[in-house]
């Protein structure tokens, strides 16, 4: 009986350890769902974006390369929005007030929601910025990009994903 208890304890311990280790996402995996209110006051539900090509941009106001990317992302939203493309910014700032200050200085034409450790873990651990996930119309991850922002490469990927969606 003692053995059973010890085995059950060890199993529970292992399960809890695994629960804390986020699963590293790869292209082809389903993009984890999330629903958050955006800082413009509207609800954002990733599930309702199904059918669109979505770019999830993990960023923060303290991240210089993330800030540099914002006008480019707005430009991509403007260029491809009508064809079924949607950018969503997920801020990993510690405070929404800081993000709102940033949003007064830079124009965003896409929703921005607040991220946190839970959402970060859901996406495999957001342990460095910038980090972007391009999600296909079927809700599966098409590409993951971290580090310096490359607008031209991203533009091509979005255009290809939109073309493929139409076929």
């Amino acid at each position, binding site marked *: 009986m003692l053995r059973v208890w010890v085995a059950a304890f060890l199993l529970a311990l292992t399960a809890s350890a695994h629960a*804390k*280790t*986020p699963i590293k996402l790869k292209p082809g995996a389903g993009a984890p769902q999330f629903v958050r209110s955006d800082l413009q006051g509207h609800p954002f539900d990733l599930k309702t974006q199904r059918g669109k090509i979505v770019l999830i941009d993990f960023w*923060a*106001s*303290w*991240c*210089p*390369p*993330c*800030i*540099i990317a*914002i*006008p480019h992302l707005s*430009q991509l939203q403007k260029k491809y929005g009508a064809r079924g493309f949607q950018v969503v910014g997920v801020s*990993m*700032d*510690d405070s929404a007030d800081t993000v709102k200050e*940033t949003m007064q*200085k*830079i124009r965003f034409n896409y929703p921005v929601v607040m*991220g*946190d*450790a*839970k959402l*970060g*873990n859901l996406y495999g*651990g*957001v*342990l*460095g*910025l*910038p980090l972007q996930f391009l999600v296909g119309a079927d809700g599966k991850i098409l590409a993951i990009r*971290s*580090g*310096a922002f490359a607008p031209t490469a991203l533009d091509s990927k979005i255009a290809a994903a939109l073309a493929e969606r139409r076929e």
Partner: protein
Amino acid sequence: MRLAMRLAILAHLLTVLLLAPLSASAAPGDALTIPASVQIQPAELAAMLKAGDTPPILQVGFSVMYQQAHIPNSQYAGPGNKDDGLLNLKSHVDALPRDRLVVIYCGCCPWEKCPNIAAAYKQLIGMGFTKVKVLYLASNFGADWVDKGYPVIRGG
């Protein structure tokens, strides 16, 4: 086409100018002023931890990052680009002898863009610490520490 290129360059310059107030305290690029002699490589720190040699380790970045994963026994000091963060860092180490080895790390962004690490390093040097080591994370904490399999405490 030329006009589009000019407009893109103009937009980029405007962004940089607009963001000047944001980056004034952040001072990205300051990390490049941290001498190589005080930098410690991830493998070296991981080996120290494995050997049971655990100096005070302080994370001088952002709490959302620390909550997700941090180095075992490291403490959250707060971002080096904020006065509050530097004050918190000071309070964490104030009681330590100035010749004690202290390790700091951030890893929020690529090394040359980190807004925190150089300010935190300067703070410790300014306090008289003589054995400060700065963990060199070229890309970020995820890529250069967690993904390498070095020990972490998860949370979030």
